[in-house]
């Protein structure tokens, strides 16, 4: 069937990675928008969370879809990692990277696994946290722990590194590579991860440093 042939081809796998990556990026945007209400006040944040969870159907449909997208991105990423290691790794006695600034592209599988670990801990801490507790109290309690907060900051740094290759790589896979737009894309591939790092990191620092004690 054409679809199976497409997805199992080398370019099809790339496109599936890019497409699931794009969906995860869009989720990240909506998550960031929701979390940004923390910067306003406890009432606004709690109001947003209550409003969201007063529509259980939306939450179930979107979280199931997100889970499937995550599953596709991770399993295909691991498959590509294993396939590529078989095809290429440690072929040479001396191996030199000619491309400067290849840290992000080289570490994609590892930063990806860091993000997975973070997502698991984050989901079990917040989504499946103690029932009956207000979400704003959970945020304050968990992020108030120094090491918990530190772990979050490290995970956000891994996310930023992952995105700094992922964003450009996604557009290249979709075929978006044109001299007119490349300069802008090259800037955005740093601006987008930095935006998420500052927004999410700021929340963690707010609670970690004790400034959010009265939240």
């Amino acid at each position, binding site marked *: 069937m*054409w679809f199976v*042939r*497409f997805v199992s*081809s*080398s*370019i*099809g*796998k*790339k*496109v599936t990675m890019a497409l699931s990556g794009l969906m995860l990026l869009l989720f990240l945007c909506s998550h960031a928008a929701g979390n940004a209400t923390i910067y306003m006040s406890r009432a606004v944040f709690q109001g947003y969370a209550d409003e969201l969870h007063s529509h259980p159907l939306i939450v179930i449909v979107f979280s199931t879809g997100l889970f499937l997208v995550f599953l596709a991105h991770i399993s295909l990423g691991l498959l*590509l990692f294993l*396939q*590529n290691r*078989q*095809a*290429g*790794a440690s*072929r*040479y*006695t*001396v*191996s*030199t*990277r*000619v*491309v400067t600034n*290849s840290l992000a*592209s*080289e570490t*994609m599988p590892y930063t990806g696994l860091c993000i997975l670990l973070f997502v698991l801990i984050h989901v079990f801490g917040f989504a499946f946290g103690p029932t009956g507790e207000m979400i704003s109290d959970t945020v304050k309690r968990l992020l108030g722990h120094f090491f918990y907060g530190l772990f979050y900051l490290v995970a956000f740094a891994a996310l930023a590194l992952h995105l700094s*290759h992922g964003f*450009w*790589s996604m557009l*290249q*896979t*979709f*075929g*978006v*590579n*044109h*001299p007119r737009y490349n300069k802008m894309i090259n800037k955005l591939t740093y601006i987008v991860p930095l935006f998420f790092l500052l927004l999410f990191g700021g929340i963690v620092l707010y609670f970690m440093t004790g400034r959010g004690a009265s939240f």
Partner: protein
Amino acid sequence: MSTIDLTLQIWRQKNSDSLGNLQTYTLTGISTDMSFLEMLDVLNEKLTKEGKDPVAFDHDCREGICGMCGSVINGIAHGPEKETTLCQLHMRNFKTGDILVVEPFRSRAFPIRKDLIVDRSAFDRIIQSGGYVSVNTGGTPDGNAIPIPAETAELAMDAAACIGCGACVAACPNGAAMLFTSAKISQLCLLPQGKVERKARALAMVKIMDEEGFGNCSNERECEAVCPKGISIRNIARMNREFIAAALFEG
């Protein structure tokens, strides 16, 4: 004329079935005006006089246009100079005391035949699957019958500059042949004569590329950095577009 003294560590392998290893040779008084291949010629003359087996390496035109030569020098395909084939790499890029590790272009799809010679016929099979335009025989067509914008012609020419040396595969951390295949697909799909078969071509060439055992592209950009002809990964983006469109509506 300045000369340099070098230590070479060259991959020696008897044939496809045997295990290879690096062997060390020292050369003194190498002229800096020599090309890398001429330096290897000097080594081979020395080895022949000593009654030893000379180092087997591929070469043909020795002017950087045929795509036959190529080895990995200290981890870099075609050596340290940008946009240069191995035959056009001159010894003035090196200095006395340098240790040069010379290895063949390695990939699962490029089996080693002997020493530095690899079998790149996988590239030929990719070309056979679609790297052509079908033209029925007949009278000679007028050269200007099909107008082509200058920019399009230039882009096609940039892609057609690919000499099929395989450095992109050798440099790719995944051993992918995306840059080669995309250059060949781009060169034809940009021009009106090649547009007729563009979808079938994209599907066929990518299929054979996958079957030949090349790895998957993960956008590491190493291919573009070592390409002796400066082929841009913009071609890979174009191939992605060609393949996606073909797979969704044709395949």
